[in-house]
């Protein structure tokens, strides 16, 4: 089925992110988030009262507290009352909700943010709580273990090997040297096996961080940004939760989301992929049909900084920022959620020449 073009032109007009760090004990979540919100608002000259819709993504399980996002709302300035929503997911899905809100004509601008502090808990254990609670979660398979099963499937299928995975990790962290926000930059040893076949270097750093973008429709976007990153299409898809019924070497949901977002209509020059583990880039490159001529993760990607619940939104933001700077004309941005790329979101962003 051919994708339906969006009913309105909507663009990412500003992007900001924190410096991602291993720990931010001195900052509460709102203290972590607020500078990023101010930065993205300042970039457009908008005030909170000018924003039509606000949407955020975060997780109570990371914070260890119920309704933690309500505290973060203090950083937005919710008086006089604002139109606001929250997803218990990565901020990329908050961006999707905001995009839909603008497409309906209910708003012309939106502020989207995502944030997460992984440092207070053990993120490998925390993420087990998103698994099937009957058959899987009682075994406590941590996020690295599940990614390692996927990596071994790829190795068994001949799609990659440990040397190729190390090259993905090295390229990502080399690229991150140009990214002042990244947590892990430059060359570092691949390290020991965390869960074989994945070594430390194949896994994302654990850290804290936040990100925010502003969306705007039509001429409003042109007013706010010299070169808006127009969202030509966006879609997200999910696969069965049971790992044993899926082909872990493929990502049909990413492919379908890309198709529905219009990614295959013309080549892209840049791809920001949300691949927390090196082997997942192998899966995504194949599913998204990315050739060697596409610049993949020039930011360093998630292997260089992985603030959970913001990392996917950052992919959209980084892709948009390259368009803002004139470094890309057509970029693919991808976000994922769940074990072994269970859910995938793809957006196609374009700059006008």
């Amino acid at each position, binding site marked *: 089925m051919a994708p339906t073009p969006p009913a309105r032109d909507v663009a990412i007009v500003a992007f900001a992110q924190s410096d991602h760090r291993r720990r931010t*004990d*001195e900052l509460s979540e709102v*203290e972590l988030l607020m*500078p990023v919100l101010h930065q993205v608002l300042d970039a457009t000259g908008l005030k909170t009262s000018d924003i039509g819709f606000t949407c955020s993504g975060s997780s109570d399980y990371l914070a*260890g507290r119920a309704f933690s996002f309500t505290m973060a709302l203090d950083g937005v*300035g919710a008086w006089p009352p604002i139109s606001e929503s929250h997803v218990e997911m990565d901020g990329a899905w908050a961006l999707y909700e905001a995009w839909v809100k603008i497409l309906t004509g209910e708003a012309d601008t939106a502020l989207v943010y995502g944030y997460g502090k992984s440092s207070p808990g053990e993120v490998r254990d925390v993420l087990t709580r998103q698994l099937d609670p009957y*058959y899987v979660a009682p075994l406590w398979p941590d996020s690295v273990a599940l990614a390692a*099963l996927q990596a071994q499937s790829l190795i068994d299928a001949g799609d990659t090997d440990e040397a190729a995975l190390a090259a993905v990790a090295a390229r990502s962290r080399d690229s991150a040297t140009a990214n002042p926000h990244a947590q892990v930059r430059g060359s570092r040893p691949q390290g020991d096996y965390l*869960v074989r076949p994945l070594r430390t270097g194949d896994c994302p750093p654990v850290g804290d961080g936040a990100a925010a973008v502003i969306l705007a429709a039509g001429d409003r976007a042109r007013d706010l940004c010299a070169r808006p990153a127009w969202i030509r299409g966006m879609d997200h898809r999910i696969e069965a939760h049971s790992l*044993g019924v899926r082909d872990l070497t493929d990502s049909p949901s990413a492919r379908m989301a890309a198709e529905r977002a219009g990614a295959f209509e013309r080549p892209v020059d840049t791809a920001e992929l949300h691949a927390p583990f090196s082997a997942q880039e192998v899966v995504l490159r194949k599913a998204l049909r990315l050739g060697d001529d596409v610049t993949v993760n020039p930011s360093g990607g998630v292997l260089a900084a992985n603030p959970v619940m913001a990392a996917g939104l950052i992919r959209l933001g980084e892709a948009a920022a390259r368009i803002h700077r004139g470094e890309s004309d057509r970029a693919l941005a991808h976000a994922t959620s769940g074990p072994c790329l269970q859910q995938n979101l793809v957006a196609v962003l374009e700059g006008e020449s």
Partner: protein
Amino acid sequence: MTSSAAPEVLRAPLVVEFPFTRSLGPVQSAFLTGLRERTVLGVRTGDGRVLVPPVEYDPVTAEEIRELVEVAPTGTVTTWAWNPTPRRDQPLGRPFAWVLVRLDGADTALLHVLDAPGPEAVRTGMRVRIRWAGERTGAITDIACFEPGEAEEDHQPGPHSGRFEDLVTGIVAPARLDYTYSPGRAQSAYISGLSARKTVGERCPSCQKVYVPPRGACPTCGLATQERVEVGPAGTVTTYCIVNIKAKNLDIEVPYVYAHIALDGAGLALHGRIGGIPYDQVRMGLRVEPVWSEGGRYPDHYRPTGEPDADYDTYKELI
């Protein structure tokens, strides 16, 4: 009072623990009861595939599926990952392999663990069998783990009614996550202040409101609050309620009064219990002060100061 020295960031262990109690549908109930009886069941989809572990709806067509099939306790590893450092609550306390196992008679794979001496003893395609837990309750952990090898007795896969004596209809899945909680800069300053029996708020640079307890942001202006301001100790009751139900583990006689109290200098009211006065004599405007118990980390309650009541106009904005 304005203080610039940042207090030490506070940290404390925070444990989130909950015994999730979940009911089971007919297929999950049969599967988990089967494990208790050392019988592994799958479910057949409309196109004839057998899913193990079984689900109630076809993951492709979403069609309801109920046809149970018994599969063998032996199978083939479809992929694996060696875990050198087991984490708390994982099935084995020594290094093991995570495995996806396609049991004989099944078309899909089950996630579990394999007890093996080392990674060199594991490979995709190897034959494994279930090692049953000694005590079984009707849970996925009734499979203690897999081990290399074939079945000890002959198992014939085939149709199964799903009927067992004493069906398991629910599971209790305990979950515990450990955190080290840090409240951040603003709340650390507030808590540190309390240890000296001072109540410290923060002033918004824009609207000048003083927030107590401070959270580092003015929710009205969306700005960071930095300037620390000591408020109180006395304050005014802005509104209150009378509590008539005794809370479990709370050693306070009912009825008692719970009130919003605007400490002098604060831009909003915090809440606390009122003592030292009969409950039916508490009123809006009553002037109160904190009472600290020995070693208390925050005021135990507030009692009347004996001053005349505050004029309504002085606190009406804070109700």
